[in-house]
Protein backbone atom coordinates (compact mmCIF):
# COMPACT_ATOMS: atom_id res chain seq x y z
CA UNK A 1 0.00 0.00 0.00
CA UNK A 2 1.43 3.32 -1.04
CA UNK A 3 0.60 6.13 1.31
CA UNK A 4 2.44 8.96 -0.41
CA UNK A 5 0.98 11.21 -3.04
CA UNK A 6 3.00 13.02 -5.71
CA UNK A 7 3.01 16.24 -3.74
CA UNK A 8 4.69 14.50 -0.83
CA UNK A 9 7.22 12.69 -3.00
CA UNK A 10 8.12 15.89 -4.83
CA UNK A 11 8.56 17.69 -1.52
CA UNK A 12 10.87 14.85 -0.48
CA UNK A 13 12.96 15.23 -3.63
CA UNK A 14 12.99 19.01 -3.11
CA UNK A 15 14.37 18.64 0.40
CA UNK A 16 11.28 20.21 1.96
CA UNK A 17 10.46 17.49 4.48
CA UNK A 18 11.66 16.95 8.01
CA UNK A 19 13.91 14.05 8.95
CA UNK A 20 11.12 11.86 10.36
CA UNK A 21 9.02 12.00 7.20
CA UNK A 22 12.15 11.45 5.13
CA UNK A 23 12.99 8.26 6.93
CA UNK A 24 9.37 7.11 6.63
CA UNK A 25 9.53 7.60 2.88
CA UNK A 26 12.93 5.97 2.64
CA UNK A 27 11.71 2.92 4.56
CA UNK A 28 8.68 2.70 2.28
CA UNK A 29 10.90 3.03 -0.79
CA UNK A 30 13.10 0.21 0.40
CA UNK A 31 10.05 -2.05 0.61
CA UNK A 32 8.32 -0.86 -2.54
CA UNK A 33 10.18 -0.66 -5.87
CA UNK A 34 7.27 1.08 -7.55
CA UNK A 35 7.44 3.87 -5.01
CA UNK A 36 11.22 4.04 -5.38
CA UNK A 37 10.78 4.38 -9.13
CA UNK A 38 8.30 7.22 -8.74
CA UNK A 39 10.76 9.04 -6.49
CA UNK A 40 13.57 8.39 -8.94
CA UNK A 41 11.54 9.93 -11.73
CA UNK A 42 10.77 13.06 -9.76
CA UNK A 43 14.43 13.32 -8.85
CA UNK A 44 15.51 12.82 -12.45
CA UNK A 45 13.16 15.60 -13.55
CA UNK A 46 14.59 17.98 -10.98
CA UNK A 47 18.11 17.19 -12.12
CA UNK A 48 17.30 17.44 -15.80
CA UNK A 49 15.53 20.78 -15.34
CA UNK A 50 18.51 22.24 -13.49
CA UNK A 51 20.93 20.85 -16.01
CA UNK A 52 18.92 22.11 -18.96
CA UNK A 53 19.49 25.72 -17.96
CA UNK A 54 22.86 25.40 -16.24
CA UNK A 55 24.69 26.37 -19.40
CA UNK A 56 23.23 29.89 -19.26
CA UNK A 57 25.37 30.63 -16.21
CA UNK A 58 28.62 30.17 -18.03
CA UNK A 59 27.63 32.28 -21.01
CA UNK A 60 29.19 35.73 -21.10
CA UNK A 61 26.72 38.30 -19.86
CA UNK A 62 25.78 40.58 -22.77
CA UNK A 63 27.27 44.00 -22.49
CA UNK A 64 23.93 45.76 -22.72
CA UNK A 65 22.86 44.10 -19.47
CA UNK A 66 26.05 45.12 -17.71
CA UNK A 67 25.47 48.64 -18.92
CA UNK A 68 21.88 48.56 -17.74
CA UNK A 69 23.08 47.55 -14.28
CA UNK A 70 25.45 50.50 -14.27
CA UNK A 71 28.56 48.54 -15.00
CA UNK A 72 30.16 51.17 -17.16
CA UNK A 73 33.40 51.79 -15.37
CA UNK A 74 35.49 48.96 -16.51
CA UNK A 75 38.83 47.40 -17.12
CA UNK A 76 39.99 45.80 -13.97
CA UNK A 77 41.41 42.61 -15.39
CA UNK A 78 42.04 40.39 -12.43
CA UNK A 79 43.40 37.23 -13.95
CA UNK A 80 47.01 37.03 -12.72
CA UNK A 81 46.96 35.49 -9.30
CA UNK A 82 43.76 33.53 -9.53
CA UNK A 83 44.63 31.94 -12.82
CA UNK A 84 48.07 30.98 -11.71
CA UNK A 85 46.50 29.41 -8.66
CA UNK A 86 44.22 27.41 -10.91
CA UNK A 87 47.33 25.60 -12.02
CA UNK A 88 46.98 25.67 -15.76
CA UNK A 89 50.00 25.21 -17.97
CA UNK A 90 51.37 28.63 -18.95
CA UNK A 91 50.28 28.36 -22.57
CA UNK A 92 46.73 27.60 -21.53
CA UNK A 93 46.72 30.53 -19.15
CA UNK A 94 47.76 32.74 -21.99
CA UNK A 95 45.06 31.37 -24.22
CA UNK A 96 42.48 31.91 -21.51
CA UNK A 97 43.70 35.44 -20.93
CA UNK A 98 43.52 36.20 -24.60
CA UNK A 99 40.02 34.85 -24.84
CA UNK A 100 38.95 36.78 -21.77
CA UNK A 101 40.55 40.00 -22.81
CA UNK A 102 38.23 40.31 -25.75
CA UNK A 103 35.27 40.27 -23.42
CA UNK A 104 37.23 41.92 -20.66
CA UNK A 105 37.82 45.09 -22.56
CA UNK A 106 34.12 45.65 -22.59
CA UNK A 107 33.04 44.38 -19.24
CA UNK A 108 35.94 44.51 -16.86
CA UNK A 109 35.82 42.30 -13.86
CA UNK A 110 32.56 40.67 -14.84
CA UNK A 111 34.36 38.92 -17.61
CA UNK A 112 34.83 36.26 -15.01
CA UNK A 113 31.34 35.14 -15.82
CA UNK A 114 32.52 34.54 -19.32
CA UNK A 115 35.76 32.86 -18.46
CA UNK A 116 36.33 29.39 -19.79
CA UNK A 117 33.19 27.53 -18.88
CA UNK A 118 33.47 25.52 -15.70
CA UNK A 119 31.13 22.96 -17.20
CA UNK A 120 31.38 22.01 -20.81
CA UNK A 121 30.09 19.26 -23.04
CA UNK A 122 32.23 16.13 -22.80
CA UNK A 123 33.38 14.35 -25.94
CA UNK A 124 31.25 11.27 -25.25
CA UNK A 125 28.17 13.22 -24.18
CA UNK A 126 27.27 14.69 -20.84
CA UNK A 127 29.09 17.47 -19.07
CA UNK A 128 32.61 17.62 -17.78
CA UNK A 129 34.28 19.96 -15.34
CA UNK A 130 36.79 22.34 -16.80
CA UNK A 131 38.76 25.39 -15.84
CA UNK A 132 38.43 26.53 -12.27
CA UNK A 133 36.05 23.75 -11.39
CA UNK A 134 38.34 21.01 -12.71
CA UNK A 135 41.23 22.62 -10.86
CA UNK A 136 39.27 22.69 -7.61
CA UNK A 137 38.27 19.04 -8.02
CA UNK A 138 41.87 18.10 -8.76
CA UNK A 139 43.46 19.89 -5.86
CA UNK A 140 41.15 21.23 -3.23
CA UNK A 141 40.62 19.15 -0.12
CA UNK A 142 37.10 18.89 1.18
CA UNK A 143 37.72 20.89 4.32
CA UNK A 144 39.61 23.66 2.62
CA UNK A 145 38.08 27.06 2.01
CA UNK A 146 37.15 27.41 -1.63
CA UNK A 147 38.88 29.53 -4.17
CA UNK A 148 36.84 31.40 -6.76
CA UNK A 149 33.74 30.55 -4.75
CA UNK A 150 34.05 26.88 -5.52
CA UNK A 151 34.09 24.42 -2.68
CA UNK A 152 34.38 20.66 -2.56
CA UNK A 153 32.00 18.98 -0.15
CA UNK A 154 33.03 15.39 0.17
CA UNK A 155 34.96 12.73 -1.71
CA UNK A 156 34.18 9.04 -1.95
CA UNK A 157 34.70 5.84 -3.90
CA UNK A 158 31.76 4.97 -6.09
CA UNK A 159 30.21 1.54 -6.32
CA UNK A 160 31.35 1.26 -9.91
CA UNK A 161 34.91 2.13 -8.94
CA UNK A 162 36.67 5.45 -9.23
CA UNK A 163 36.50 8.60 -7.15
CA UNK A 164 33.66 11.06 -7.02
CA UNK A 165 33.50 14.49 -5.38
CA UNK A 166 30.65 16.87 -4.66
CA UNK A 167 31.09 20.53 -5.45
CA UNK A 168 29.35 23.84 -4.96
CA UNK A 169 29.80 26.93 -7.08
CA UNK A 170 28.33 29.61 -4.92
CA UNK A 171 28.52 32.42 -7.45
CA UNK A 172 26.61 30.40 -10.02
CA UNK A 173 24.32 28.89 -7.41
CA UNK A 174 25.11 25.46 -8.75
CA UNK A 175 25.98 22.27 -6.98
CA UNK A 176 26.74 18.84 -8.27
CA UNK A 177 28.64 15.64 -8.27
CA UNK A 178 31.62 14.86 -10.46
CA UNK A 179 33.28 11.48 -10.96
CA UNK A 180 36.71 10.75 -12.32
CA UNK A 181 36.44 9.01 -15.67
CA UNK A 182 39.18 8.58 -18.21
CA UNK A 183 41.30 11.35 -16.82
CA UNK A 184 38.44 13.85 -16.66
CA UNK A 185 35.88 14.94 -14.12
CA UNK A 186 32.51 13.94 -15.54
CA UNK A 187 29.68 15.95 -14.02
CA UNK A 188 27.24 13.15 -13.30
CA UNK A 189 24.74 15.58 -11.88
CA UNK A 190 24.32 19.31 -11.59
CA UNK A 191 21.55 21.06 -9.78
CA UNK A 192 20.53 24.57 -8.87
CA UNK A 193 21.40 25.62 -5.36
CA UNK A 194 20.07 28.75 -3.80
CA UNK A 195 22.42 28.33 -0.85
CA UNK A 196 24.99 30.99 -1.28
CA UNK A 197 26.38 31.49 2.19
CA UNK A 198 25.47 34.38 4.41
CA UNK A 199 28.46 36.57 3.65
CA UNK A 200 28.45 38.52 0.43
CA UNK A 201 31.77 36.98 -0.49
CA UNK A 202 30.30 33.52 -0.21
CA UNK A 203 33.65 31.85 0.07
CA UNK A 204 32.75 29.55 2.87
CA UNK A 205 30.44 26.69 2.18
CA UNK A 206 29.95 23.74 4.45
CA UNK A 207 29.61 20.27 3.04
CA UNK A 208 26.31 20.03 4.86
CA UNK A 209 25.01 22.84 2.66
CA UNK A 210 24.91 20.51 -0.35
CA UNK A 211 21.38 20.42 -1.80
CA UNK A 212 19.35 17.29 -1.04
CA UNK A 213 19.48 16.21 -4.67
CA UNK A 214 23.27 16.02 -4.47
CA UNK A 215 23.23 14.16 -1.17
CA UNK A 216 20.69 11.73 -2.60
CA UNK A 217 22.96 11.08 -5.58
CA UNK A 218 25.85 10.47 -3.17
CA UNK A 219 23.73 7.99 -1.23
CA UNK A 220 23.02 6.10 -4.40
CA UNK A 221 26.62 5.95 -5.56
CA UNK A 222 28.79 5.81 -2.49
CA UNK A 223 30.74 2.68 -1.66
CA UNK A 224 31.45 2.71 2.06
CA UNK A 225 32.17 5.95 3.88
CA UNK A 226 33.40 9.27 2.51
CA UNK A 227 37.17 9.67 2.39
CA UNK A 228 38.79 11.19 5.43
CA UNK A 229 41.46 13.83 5.06
CA UNK A 230 44.37 11.38 4.82
CA UNK A 231 42.61 9.24 2.25
CA UNK A 232 41.78 12.32 0.30
CA UNK A 233 45.40 13.47 0.28
CA UNK A 234 46.49 10.03 -0.90
CA UNK A 235 43.85 9.96 -3.62
CA UNK A 236 44.93 13.39 -4.78
CA UNK A 237 48.55 12.31 -4.86
CA UNK A 238 47.57 9.37 -7.07
CA UNK A 239 45.86 11.71 -9.52
CA UNK A 240 42.48 10.34 -8.39
CA UNK A 241 43.25 6.97 -9.91
CA UNK A 242 41.79 4.16 -7.85
Amino acid at each position, binding site marked *: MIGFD*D*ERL*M*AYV*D*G*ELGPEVCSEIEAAMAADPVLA*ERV*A*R*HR*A*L*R*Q*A*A*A*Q*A*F*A*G*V*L*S*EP*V*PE*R*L*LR*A*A*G*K*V*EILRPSFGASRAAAGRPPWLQLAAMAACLVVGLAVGR*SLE*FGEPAAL*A*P*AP*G*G*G*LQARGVLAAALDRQLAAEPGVKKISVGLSFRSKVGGYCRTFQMS*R*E*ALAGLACRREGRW*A*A*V*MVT*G*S*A*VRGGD*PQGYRMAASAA*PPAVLAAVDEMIDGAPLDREQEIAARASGWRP
Partner: protein
Amino acid sequence: MNAFQREMVELLPRLRRFARALARDGADADDLVQLTVERALGRADQWTAGTRLDSWMFRIMKNAWIDEARARQRRGRVFAPAEAGEQVGDEGAAGIERGLEAAAVAREIARLPEDQRLAVALVLVEGLSYREAAEVLEIPEGTLTSRLVRGRNAVLERLGGPGERV
Protein backbone atom coordinates in the same frame (compact mmCIF):
# COMPACT_ATOMS: atom_id res chain seq x y z
CA MET B 1 28.77 51.97 -8.92
CA ASN B 2 27.37 51.24 -5.48
CA ALA B 3 27.09 47.99 -3.53
CA PHE B 4 23.53 47.49 -4.72
CA GLN B 5 24.62 47.61 -8.32
CA ARG B 6 27.61 45.39 -7.72
CA GLU B 7 25.40 42.75 -6.19
CA MET B 8 23.02 43.12 -9.09
CA VAL B 9 25.83 42.56 -11.57
CA GLU B 10 26.80 39.41 -9.68
CA LEU B 11 23.21 38.23 -10.03
CA LEU B 12 23.00 38.76 -13.78
CA PRO B 13 23.87 35.17 -14.73
CA ARG B 14 21.13 33.81 -12.48
CA LEU B 15 18.64 36.41 -13.69
CA ARG B 16 19.44 35.35 -17.23
CA ARG B 17 18.91 31.72 -16.33
CA PHE B 18 15.51 32.41 -14.75
CA ALA B 19 14.51 34.56 -17.72
CA ARG B 20 15.55 31.83 -20.14
CA ALA B 21 13.30 29.38 -18.35
CA LEU B 22 10.40 31.84 -18.69
CA ALA B 23 10.85 33.40 -22.09
CA ARG B 24 11.98 30.47 -24.24
CA ASP B 25 13.70 32.74 -26.73
CA GLY B 26 17.18 33.92 -25.77
CA ALA B 27 16.78 37.49 -27.02
CA ASP B 28 13.38 37.86 -25.34
CA ALA B 29 14.95 36.52 -22.16
CA ASP B 30 17.69 39.14 -22.18
CA ASP B 31 15.10 41.84 -22.91
CA LEU B 32 13.31 40.65 -19.80
CA VAL B 33 16.52 40.81 -17.76
CA GLN B 34 17.17 44.32 -18.98
CA LEU B 35 13.67 45.45 -18.11
CA THR B 36 14.07 43.86 -14.68
CA VAL B 37 17.37 45.60 -14.04
CA GLU B 38 15.95 48.95 -15.11
CA ARG B 39 12.91 48.57 -12.89
CA ALA B 40 15.06 47.45 -9.97
CA LEU B 41 17.33 50.46 -10.31
CA GLY B 42 14.28 52.70 -10.53
CA ARG B 43 13.04 51.48 -7.19
CA ALA B 44 16.30 50.70 -5.47
CA ASP B 45 15.09 52.69 -2.48
CA GLN B 46 12.42 50.04 -1.89
CA TRP B 47 14.97 47.29 -1.36
CA THR B 48 16.03 46.72 2.23
CA ALA B 49 19.76 46.23 2.50
CA GLY B 50 20.58 42.93 4.14
CA THR B 51 17.57 41.14 2.67
CA ARG B 52 17.93 38.87 -0.29
CA LEU B 53 18.41 40.77 -3.49
CA ASP B 54 17.87 37.66 -5.61
CA SER B 55 14.34 37.06 -4.33
CA TRP B 56 13.51 40.73 -4.71
CA MET B 57 14.72 40.80 -8.29
CA PHE B 58 13.07 37.53 -9.20
CA ARG B 59 9.83 39.09 -8.01
CA ILE B 60 10.38 42.16 -10.17
CA MET B 61 11.14 39.89 -13.10
CA LYS B 62 8.02 37.83 -12.48
CA ASN B 63 5.88 40.97 -12.53
CA ALA B 64 7.64 42.31 -15.60
CA TRP B 65 7.11 39.02 -17.35
CA ILE B 66 3.43 38.90 -16.52
CA ASP B 67 3.02 42.52 -17.71
CA GLU B 68 4.80 41.68 -20.92
CA ALA B 69 2.75 38.57 -21.50
CA ARG B 70 -0.46 40.56 -21.08
CA ALA B 71 0.77 43.27 -23.41
CA ARG B 72 1.61 40.66 -26.01
CA GLN B 73 -1.83 39.16 -25.71
CA ARG B 74 -3.44 42.56 -26.15
CA ARG B 75 -1.42 43.09 -29.29
CA GLY B 76 -2.55 39.69 -30.45
CA ARG B 77 0.98 38.49 -30.78
CA VAL B 78 1.29 34.80 -30.31
CA PHE B 79 4.08 33.41 -28.24
CA ALA B 80 7.03 31.99 -30.01
CA PRO B 81 6.29 28.35 -30.63
CA ALA B 82 7.82 25.88 -28.28
CA GLU B 83 10.97 25.33 -30.23
CA ALA B 84 12.64 27.42 -27.62
CA GLY B 85 13.80 24.54 -25.51
CA GLU B 86 16.16 23.69 -28.30
CA GLN B 87 18.30 26.65 -27.38
CA VAL B 88 19.34 25.18 -24.10
CA GLY B 89 20.36 21.95 -22.64
CA ASP B 90 21.74 20.33 -25.75
CA GLU B 91 24.75 19.19 -23.84
CA GLY B 92 22.96 17.75 -20.90
CA ALA B 93 21.77 14.39 -22.13
CA ALA B 94 24.07 11.92 -20.43
CA GLY B 95 24.22 11.42 -16.73
CA ILE B 96 20.51 11.82 -16.40
CA GLU B 97 18.87 8.78 -14.96
CA ARG B 98 15.60 7.36 -16.13
CA GLY B 99 16.03 8.67 -19.62
CA LEU B 100 15.02 12.27 -18.94
CA GLU B 101 16.94 14.30 -21.41
CA ALA B 102 17.67 17.91 -20.48
CA ALA B 103 16.72 19.46 -23.83
CA ALA B 104 13.41 17.61 -23.89
CA VAL B 105 12.67 18.71 -20.34
CA ALA B 106 13.42 22.33 -21.26
CA ARG B 107 11.07 22.06 -24.22
CA GLU B 108 8.26 20.69 -22.08
CA ILE B 109 8.80 23.34 -19.41
CA ALA B 110 8.42 25.91 -22.18
CA ARG B 111 4.98 24.48 -23.01
CA LEU B 112 3.61 24.77 -19.48
CA PRO B 113 1.06 27.44 -18.58
CA GLU B 114 2.67 30.58 -17.18
CA ASP B 115 1.81 29.99 -13.54
CA GLN B 116 3.18 26.46 -13.56
CA ARG B 117 6.29 27.42 -15.48
CA LEU B 118 7.09 30.16 -12.96
CA ALA B 119 6.82 27.69 -10.09
CA VAL B 120 8.89 25.04 -11.84
CA ALA B 121 11.55 27.54 -12.87
CA LEU B 122 12.01 28.91 -9.36
CA VAL B 123 12.13 25.57 -7.56
CA LEU B 124 13.68 23.19 -10.07
CA VAL B 125 15.88 25.51 -12.08
CA GLU B 126 16.79 28.16 -9.50
CA GLY B 127 16.75 25.83 -6.52
CA LEU B 128 14.61 28.04 -4.29
CA SER B 129 12.78 26.57 -1.32
CA TYR B 130 8.98 26.45 -1.41
CA ARG B 131 8.80 29.33 1.03
CA GLU B 132 11.15 31.48 -1.01
CA ALA B 133 9.42 30.66 -4.29
CA ALA B 134 5.99 31.41 -2.83
CA GLU B 135 7.28 34.78 -1.64
CA VAL B 136 8.68 35.61 -5.05
CA LEU B 137 5.39 34.71 -6.70
CA GLU B 138 3.35 36.40 -3.96
CA ILE B 139 1.13 33.38 -3.51
CA PRO B 140 0.45 31.02 -0.57
CA GLU B 141 2.74 28.01 -0.28
CA GLY B 142 -0.16 25.65 -0.90
CA THR B 143 -0.84 27.31 -4.23
CA LEU B 144 2.81 27.02 -5.13
CA THR B 145 2.95 23.31 -4.37
CA SER B 146 -0.19 22.55 -6.34
CA ARG B 147 1.25 24.40 -9.36
CA LEU B 148 4.47 22.49 -8.94
CA VAL B 149 2.67 19.17 -8.84
CA ARG B 150 0.60 19.95 -11.93
CA GLY B 151 3.54 21.34 -13.87
CA ARG B 152 5.90 18.51 -13.09
CA ASN B 153 3.35 15.81 -13.74
CA ALA B 154 2.50 17.41 -17.08
CA VAL B 155 6.17 17.36 -18.07
CA LEU B 156 6.62 13.77 -16.94
CA GLU B 157 3.48 12.62 -18.73
CA ARG B 158 4.53 14.21 -22.00
CA LEU B 159 7.98 12.76 -21.79
CA GLY B 160 6.70 9.32 -21.01
CA GLY B 161 9.35 6.89 -20.02
CA PRO B 162 9.76 3.45 -18.61
CA GLY B 163 6.42 1.88 -17.93
CA GLU B 164 4.47 4.87 -19.16
CA ARG B 165 2.82 5.79 -22.38
CA VAL B 166 4.68 8.29 -24.48
